[in-house]
């Protein structure tokens, strides 16, 4: 079981806890197990196309998984996975 750190923005969707123990040997498997246990998290992180939103960052032991094997990055029992939605926006379509 790896440890998933839950930022405040997602805590309501997981019952208010800061950390969860989640099974899985890759980032994709951990996320799938997390979504199965807490479907509201999926609604917040996954885009309409069914993929992880491109403005959601995932870190394993503080390493950005985009710099590794993305969702196939291995996750071990002692690893910590952090989900961090971006703070982003833009004025392009402002009225």
């Amino acid at each position, binding site marked *: 079981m790896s440890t998933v750190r839950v930022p*405040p923005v997602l805590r309501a969707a997981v019952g208010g806890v800061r950390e969860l123990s989640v099974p899985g040997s890759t980032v994709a498997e951990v996320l799938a197990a997390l979504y199965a246990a807490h479907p509201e998290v999926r609604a917040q992180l996954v885009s309409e196309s069914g993929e992880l939103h491109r403005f959601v960052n995932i870190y394993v032991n503080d390493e*950005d998984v985009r710099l590794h094997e993305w969702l196939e990055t291995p996750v071990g029992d002692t690893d910590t996975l*952090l989900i961090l939605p971006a703070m982003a926006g833009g004025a392009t379509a402002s009225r």
Partner: protein
Amino acid sequence: MTMRLPRVLADELVAHATTDLPNECCGMIGGRDGLAMTVHRAANTEASPFMYVMDPREQLRIMDAIDDAGDDLLAIYHSHTRSTAFPSRTDVELAFFSGTLYLIVSLATPDAPEIRAFHLRRDQPAELAITEEPVELV
């Protein structure tokens, strides 16, 4: 809920927006019970007049600092350099932090900067996605 913003912090927000021209700036505001207490500047990795993406490392560091201080993340702020202080469609589409205020500093009228705050819901239809919350300068 009204956000109470000390004038010195409002001045800091405008100063940050002005310093980062021609690009949008971004950062976070910590506080308690609706009273803003700290402004945390962050880097806009897009370095663009039309877009901001907060540096994720700084984002994490600042979120932890606010958490460790026992404060709440009251608002995520960014600037609009040429448009009004009203959320764009992109602002709503990327508003993952539905429980936090999104504060916008507009420099569209440089002599009269505008600061407004909103709750944004990206999971709601357009007519329900934007709710303005009052900002009271104290």
